[in-house]
């Protein structure tokens, strides 16, 4: 890009006066950085997900998927936008103590309350973006969730539901059930539990017995992702019709849609449009 052009007026100048010409366009458009910025988005903007945030645990990042496509890669000198994209999707790896905040306290209390399930079932502790995530093996979910609610040091009284995530390329752990818990007793502490199951055997024990609030949430996740919550009192579809085939929010389920004609041009269905990811 050439220097000397007028700098674009950003939204931060309500009087719409361009600022004094002091920098090149690239500099003007570079993300601002401050002390408090704990995630640098520059790398993310340029490497299409092939990087994890600067602040993460010392453990190796976890590869969730691989992105491939014609567009999106912008590292290197190619300015055509047609650089080709081939990059892994990396999630933050395991954190190391001290986790910071109240996280150490929560993890210690959980270990003390359920030592065996903790040793066998807790696969990974991740601290990312100020949130604590416990990756738990499905066989030990119930043994860890009960003390989570009942132990006075933990007291996560409220389960704010389960959310399914489908990672088709994560062989053996394609389906994720992500639970969020909240402790009101201890002043709104939150912890996330991430449980996986393979696509071929999509079973995860139901926690409705411990958290009745999860009844509809588990039904929704069954409906949308096909995760069978074993022990649920009535695992039926909740949002889709009872005779609906398939589980709509899985990644292999098409969005559908038809091309729309507008003033002579045809706009393809949303899932057929060009993707820059």
């Amino acid at each position, binding site marked *: 890009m050439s220097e000397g052009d007028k700098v674009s*007026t950003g939204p931060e100048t309500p009087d719409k006066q361009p600022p004094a010409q002091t920098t090149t366009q690239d500099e003007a458009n570079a993300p601002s950085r401050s002390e408090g910025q704990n995630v640098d988005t520059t790398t993310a903007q340029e490497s299409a997900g092939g990087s994890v945030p600067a602040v993460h645990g010392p453990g190796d990042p976890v590869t969730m998927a691989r992105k491939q496509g014609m567009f999106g890669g912008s590292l290197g000198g190619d300015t055509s936008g047609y650089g080709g994209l081939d990059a892994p999707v990396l999630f933050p790896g395991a954190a190391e103590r001290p986790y910071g905040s109240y996280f150490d306290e929560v993890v210690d209390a959980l270990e003390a309350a359920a030592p065996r399930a903790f040793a066998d079932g807790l696969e990974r502790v991740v601290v990312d973006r100020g949130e604590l995530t416990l990756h738990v093996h499905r066989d030990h979910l119930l043994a860890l969730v009960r003390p989570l609610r009942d132990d006075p040091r933990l007291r996560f009284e409220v389960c704010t539901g389960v959310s399914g995530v489908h990672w088709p390329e994560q062989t053996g752990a394609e389906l994720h059930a992500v639970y969020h818990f909240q402790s009101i007793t201890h002043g709104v502490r939150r912890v996330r539990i991430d449980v996986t199951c393979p696509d071929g055997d999509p079973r995860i024990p139901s926690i409705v017995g411990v958290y009745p609030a999860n009844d509809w949430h588990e039904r929704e996740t069954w409906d949308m992702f096909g995760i069978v919550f074993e022990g649920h009192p009535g695992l039926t579809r909740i949002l889709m019709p009872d005779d609906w085939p398939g589980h709509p929010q899985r990644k292999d389920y098409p969005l559908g849609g038809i091309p729309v004609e507008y003033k002579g041009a045809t706009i393809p269905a949303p899932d057929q449009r060009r993707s820059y990811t």
Partner: protein
Amino acid sequence: MATTHEHTKPDQGADYLEDTPTDLYAEGGPTSDSVDGGAVYTAGGGDWDDIAKDVATLGAERIVVNMGPQHPSTHGVLRLILELDGETVREARAGIGYLHTGIEKNMEFRTWVQGTTFCTRMDYLTPIFNETAYCLSIEKLLGITDQIPQRASDIRVLMMELNRIGSHLIALATGGMELGATTVMTIGFRERERTLRFFEAVSGLRMNNAYVRPGGVAQDVLPEHLDQLEEELPALRRGIGELEKLLLESPVLKGRTVDVGYLSLANCMALGVTGPILRSTGLPHDLRKAQPYCGYETYDFDVITRREMDAYSRICIRLDEIWQSIRIAEQAIARLRASQGDPVMVADKKIAWPAQMSVGADGQGNSLDHIRTIMGESMESLIHHFKLVTEGFRVPPGQAYAAVESPKGELGVHAVSDGGTRPYRVHFRDPSFNNLQAASAMSEGSLVADVIVAVASIDPVMGGVDR
């Protein structure tokens, strides 16, 4: 409303039911005489067989009533399956999904910014809350939470509190209408209109605003908007006072709502119920205080609680929360007057929407100044604009959960990014969806008429429940 009369011989059981040919739409409706001891079902769902089997074993006098999905008292397309013993509700189940629109799935095929136009339509009475929760989760993923300009947060707070007033007014208005009080409805809608006029002036839209955007808000609030709002506030106060006078000491309302829809603190915890229902048990849990966002910790307001745990106390809580919202809104107005001219979008130009929107003669669009710049003066700005608008910004991989205190309770957003320009997965924990689970606990054992009151006190909005 479909009614099923159930007269089954106890010894015949389910096999008998399957063999009996029934005419669902027979003239005059099914009665015990017309079918000679058989059972007639008007089924509305695939799981009906199970319900029928249950009913068959229970005896003769139970009636199953399908209330909804289209019924003026059910807040939209909610279906309540009530099993009645005379006038008493023995079992109540809620059937939902009639307004499922696949918003979460659709969002995965649009950019992060476009997602706001989808999620604003979920709970259509609380659009600003949906947008704010969604944007807070994106900002958490981007790690720019603390870079959001103060003015943008203040605008968010002002908009949210006005939206809370609007939502609470609808809760009271429709609740009153369900009890037969149409004046409550007209006053409620009339007063809500005052908040909508402000939304329209600022964002160009009354509802479904898509006003809160990742990094800030779509356009600035101008002094004339604030003038307009301040002119409306005395009238709003008067109207809410009117509503209070009309409702709070009305013997009819008290007769219908006191001790109805009871839900204790233990039940609330077990069922994950939040919002006014939880605060009606005396627990002062409000995320605005307990886990502040958008700078709520710097505002002066009270968390309203009651101890009666019934529908009446929830009405009182909603009315008092409206007063608190006005209190917050006034503080926000003062701050916005003081910070006029400050940015309302994050400074990071790789994330910030390149232009402020403006409302022109032909509707809402990019500001003409901006168009002049990108079309006539700066090629780079045009490229930058084009890239951001068509391609969008990238969000670093990971997951985040952000929650706001919506008028109905905790509205949580679980956002997952794979590093792309589109959300990999966004899940909305809508408070109505969760709280509606409590409808059974609130209404079983009570009269049919109390079901309406119990559901009204939950204030479910099916757009949010079904998403």
